């Protein structure tokens, strides 16, 4: 049955690892802003320099 004890020790260790990861991520502010990262990743690195003449204001 010592295998069981070993297993439990490991499982708690792993769960503890996740707890530490959770606390670390909160501390780093990963949950502070749940909107901007989602749009930030879609921005192109280099802004397009040329004019875009197809953009005429919509007339309603």
């Amino acid at each position, binding site marked *: *049955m010592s295998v069981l004890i070993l297993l439990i020790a490991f499982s708690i260790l792993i769960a503890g690892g996740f707890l530490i990861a959770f606390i670390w991520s*909160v501390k780093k502010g990963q949950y502070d*802003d749940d909107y901007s990262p989602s*749009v930030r990743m879609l*921005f*192109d690195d280099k*802004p*397009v320099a040329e004019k875009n003449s197809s953009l*005429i204001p919509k007339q309603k």
Partner: protein
Amino acid sequence: MEDISVKETKPSGRKRIAVQCYHCGEICDTSVSTDEKYFCCDGCKFVYQLLQENGLCNYYELSEKPGIKVKGKFSSQRFAYLENEEVKKKLLRFEGGSQCHVNFYLPQMHCASCIWLLENLHTIDQGIFFSKTNFQRKEIFIAFDPAKISLRKVVELLAFIGYEPYISLNEDGKKSNKKVNHKKIFKIGVAGFCFSNIMMLSFPEYFSSGNIGQADLQKVFTYLNLALSLPVFFYSANEFFISAWKGLRQKWLNIDAPIALAILVTFGRSIYEIISGTGAGYLDSMSGIVFFMLVGRWFQDKTYDSFSFDRDYKSYFPLGVSILKNGKEETATISQLKKGDQILVRQNEMIPADAIILSGEGNIDYSFVSGENTPLLKRRTELVYAGGKQLGGAITMEVVHPVDQSYITQLWNNDVFTRQKNKDRSFIHPWSRYFTLILFIIAGSTALYWSLNDPSKIWPSVTASLIVACPCSLLLSATFTFGNMLRHFGKNKFYLKNSSVIEALSRINTIVFDKTGTLTHSSQANVFFEGEKLQNEEINMIYSLVKESVHPLSRIIKQELILTHIVRPLQVKNFKEIAGKGIIASVNDMQIKLGSKQFIENNELSASLSQTGEVWFSINGINKGVFKISNQYRDGVSEMIKSLSSKKYKLHVISGDNEAEKKNLESIFGKQATILFHQSPQEKLNFINELKNRNSKTKVLMLGDGLNDAGALKQSDVGVAVSENTSQFTPACDAIMDSKEVSKLHRFIQYARSGRTVITWSFILSILYNIVGLSFAVQGLLSPLIAAILMPVSSISIVTYVTLATSFSAKRKGL
């Protein structure tokens, strides 16, 4: 509260012919354009050109018309105070040789385009290393090189592109707030971790009904459980103990007291059982309770980070003032102003202190302070109160009172602003008291019964009943109900300060409205023209004139003309605006006059304009007709009022404006309502006070929008600030409401009332669970298994019930 662009078409179904500004989306004429794009003003065009030069036009592709209308040109000296070393030191978070860090709150941030542009500031100015936004808190972090760009320049750049930062020199409150939030999440994380592991280690115990084959294995499990429960007891649960202790010291049994007692008893008995080897304890139940309750509190306390509900006049006033010393201009912070100082106030700047005009002509807009729409004309040697906005050219003034003694700040010296609102205690508290009382009676009679029959069972049965009858479900139902309701209110753009406002809202029986900006649109109005049909040329003339004017009636006519006609501005010569009378100018060598009847007819007896709401129009002295302007009420207002008065709410209107709207208001509100005009901020406050003094059962809800309502908002039981644009500043209040949602007021109140029903039913549900649990406990039969089943089942079912019930109720109320 003014200066708001009209984006939606008017409900009357008129055709919209105008184009929209490419930058900010405001409807406009076609006079300002570049690259085949039209702009409402030069400000917007300049921003576009700046972005275009820097290849940042992606801004316009990420969201539609993302720009923010630049409100007039700010004067070159506006941010001069940022050169001041002391101010700099307070604002900069980090100051190194070649790098400075600063954090700003940008209330205008609202979409993906904003984030993109603000994080690309470094392409506009090489001095900026990088910038990072936090959308949730509407903040931007900027790292820049002080050798290449000064702090002042950074702020000026932000203001130029439309994101003027809100700068306050005492912003310590925000930082500490953030840390507390994190601590709560850590507590939940720790409790959740321990709870799930204890649960897992308890499974063998459950399935073997207390008889695990190997004794040493069981010992390992129980001791591991004990070790895991220590952080829950000492760290996660400590706020219950602290709060209960604080309550007891004030001889007040708060809702945390019975919870703290239950946790303490459960933990104590579990330790005893484990160490004595008589059982496995109830640590799983205990950690579960703590976890669920912490989640509930967090859910309820989640507030709106980007709103501020506690502003005073200081938030509205400029931070820097231009002082004239020996003919030279210096900048000083507003608190440094002394009596006798000479100050310079430029166009569109706010008058920082009560002062006398030394030179120049004041055309002061007090709408912000008094709600009165028409600007006032002030000449030399006249006294001007702080809080007004100078619409005319620059004036020099001499300060009469320092800022904290000026007329407007006196309102804040009223003790309403220093006193905490005397909050009625929540109706949950009496419940928890009865609950505790009954629990002690049950525990006592159980002890009495077993002492007569089987004294060995006294201790297990009494502790068991204290364990199982934990009032946590009472607490859970309240926290989850209010938390979910706050979310539903928020979805409808009604943002409450905290959950206790919901209860206050449900008790309301009297409602007081402000008129301008609350019941009516502040920048839209009904316009009718009486006279011969206007020719296109004449329309263009009128348009060209009103375009130059800052008077609110001019703005309304301009808006109306753009909406209904194709307008083309003409060249205007000799433009003159005579405050309180009208405007005069020549177009195509014809003399055009717009203004009061007396002004048109060259009658010197002046009558104020908006008193009558009429603007007359003449060409070369020939009277052509009159624009009749009346306030436009928000859609659905009269239905809302009808619904409220049919439900026996007492309604009142207090307005700082003139009586022009009296008839309309009377027809909407009926005869019983009190309708008062010309109310000063102090009178508004007194009115609320009187209502409450006359009848102590009166619970007042006040709706207002301006600084002039600030005292009344604070004095009422629930003060709601109505705002056209929630990113704008609102006076101190309990809740902020989007002005489009004013017509939903009756539904909001009903929804708040339905919350009480939901909580009452969930209490009944939780009492049923308690009866089941106690029936085991008093017999001394409560096994850890029964406790472990009962605890999550009751918690989860109650949470599910209140969440579903509040969502369903919101749907039924049309929210």
